[in-house]
């Protein structure tokens, strides 16, 4: 038998996590957590709900960064004026599950689950995001997203850790983002190839690039080799480079989709980068 708790503050929540440790389970939107409970993969003694922690339900902009609270839902994100400026984020979040799933599901839950094919996680990877975590013993920590995942469905969090927010740079003039997902069906499908890009363009040349890849390696990954190569290139040169081959960070695992992923990832990369480029040059509202 399990009990449930609805802490009203972060302090109350981390006290509970400290008390129950691995016997506790945080349930945020429930999309992944309830399935784990129902299939017996998780049998928590204490279910800790995020629903009452008002301090984690806000999206704020501070010092040039967007801070998305740990209990913010995708629906909230899609209606937020600051998120709407981020083209790639809107596409990624709008592609998750279906409208009823997005009412409850959260980005904090998405990174917490650590699925390699998670849309929001992949976009956050391509946004240079940081995950804010707190626990009673260790206090507050900020973990860059490319240091957050260990392997498929495993991240660096300990049982007593709580994700309090996800942070990523706010969009500025000259900056653009893009997101491309290749799936078998238009909606409600897990992507086979996910590519996210955030780039900065000055006088027709790329000055900074952040690229995320999902559904290829064991976790979502940063494609540093692509990022380095894109800096200094013109639009046409960047397009040609993206098409030139599979990024080495893709780390494809053997599966029946391996060949498909090999030939489509460069195309998806090109599309994501060009989408971001267009926004950076003001061609997208």
């Amino acid at each position, binding site marked *: *038998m*399990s*009990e*449930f708790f*609805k802490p009203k503050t972060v302090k109350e929540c981390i006290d509970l996590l400290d008390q129950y440790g691995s016997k506790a389970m945080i*349930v945020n939107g*429930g*999309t992944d957590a*309830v*399935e784990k*409970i*129902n299939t017996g993969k998780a*049998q*928590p003694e*204490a*279910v800790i*709900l995020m*629903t009452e922690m008002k301090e984690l339900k806000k999206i704020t902009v501070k010092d040039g960064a967007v801070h998305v609270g740990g209990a913010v839902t995708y*629906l909230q994100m899609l209606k937020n004026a600051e998120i709407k400026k981020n083209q790639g984020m809107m596409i990624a979040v709008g592609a998750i*599950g*279906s*409208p*009823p*799933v997005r*009412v*409850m599901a959260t980005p904090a839950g998405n990174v917490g689950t650590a699925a390699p094919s998670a849309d929001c996680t992949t976009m956050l990877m391509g946004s240079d995001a940081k995950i804010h975590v707190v626990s009673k013993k260790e206090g507050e920590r900020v973990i860059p997203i490319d240091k957050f995942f260990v392997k498929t469905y495993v991240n660096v969090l300990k049982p007593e850790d709580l994700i309090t927010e996800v942070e990523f740079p706010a969009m500025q003039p000259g900056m653009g983002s893009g997101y491309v997902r290749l799936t078998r069906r*238009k*909606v*409600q499908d897990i992507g086979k190839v996910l590519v996210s890009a955030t780039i900065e363009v000055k006088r027709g040349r790329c000055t900074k690039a952040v690229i995320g890849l999902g559904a290829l390696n064991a976790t979502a990954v940063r494609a540093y080799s692509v990022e380095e190569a894109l800096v200094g290139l013109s639009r046409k040169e960047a397009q040609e480079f993206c098409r030139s081959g599979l990024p080495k960070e893709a780390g494809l695992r053997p599966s029946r989709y391996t060949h498909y992923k090999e030939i489509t990832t460069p195309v998806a990369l090109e599309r994501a980068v060009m989408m971001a480029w267009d926004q950076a040059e003001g061609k997208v509202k």
Partner: protein
Amino acid sequence: MAVVNFKLNGNDVTIDVDAKERMIDTLRKRFHLTGAKLTCGTGDCGACTVLYNGKAIRSCTLLTCMCDGQEIVTIEGLMPMNGGKLHPVQQAFMEAGAIQCGYCIPGMILTTVAFLNENKNPTTAQIRAAISGNLSRCSGYVKIIDAVKLAAKRMREGA
């Protein structure tokens, strides 16, 4: 066990449940409300859709304890909560011939109710996006889309 208080189809209810119990099981086994169907159990098919504070959500990925202090409406509650008359969406689904086997229809109707409460004059593309999380294996969706358009028209006219 945990005591959970919530509003179900307009009535205040209190139940004692394990914190791991799902709302779909609570509805079907404790309240014998079988309109919502447990099908995929992973939030994908939409057959278990209910209204949670007016928004369509999945009851198979919803713990009953998550509904403490919240309001749930199932397909069984639509007519009583509409003064004993069929809800305009229910009426439109019947008239448009949108129902074949009927299995997905409670979810389709509740999704449509939540959608039309927010968008009174939807385009076909918006309707398709709104019901994209509700799978039907026999209708082909065409008449369902017709039904949503008819319901939207009736609701705009104040039916």
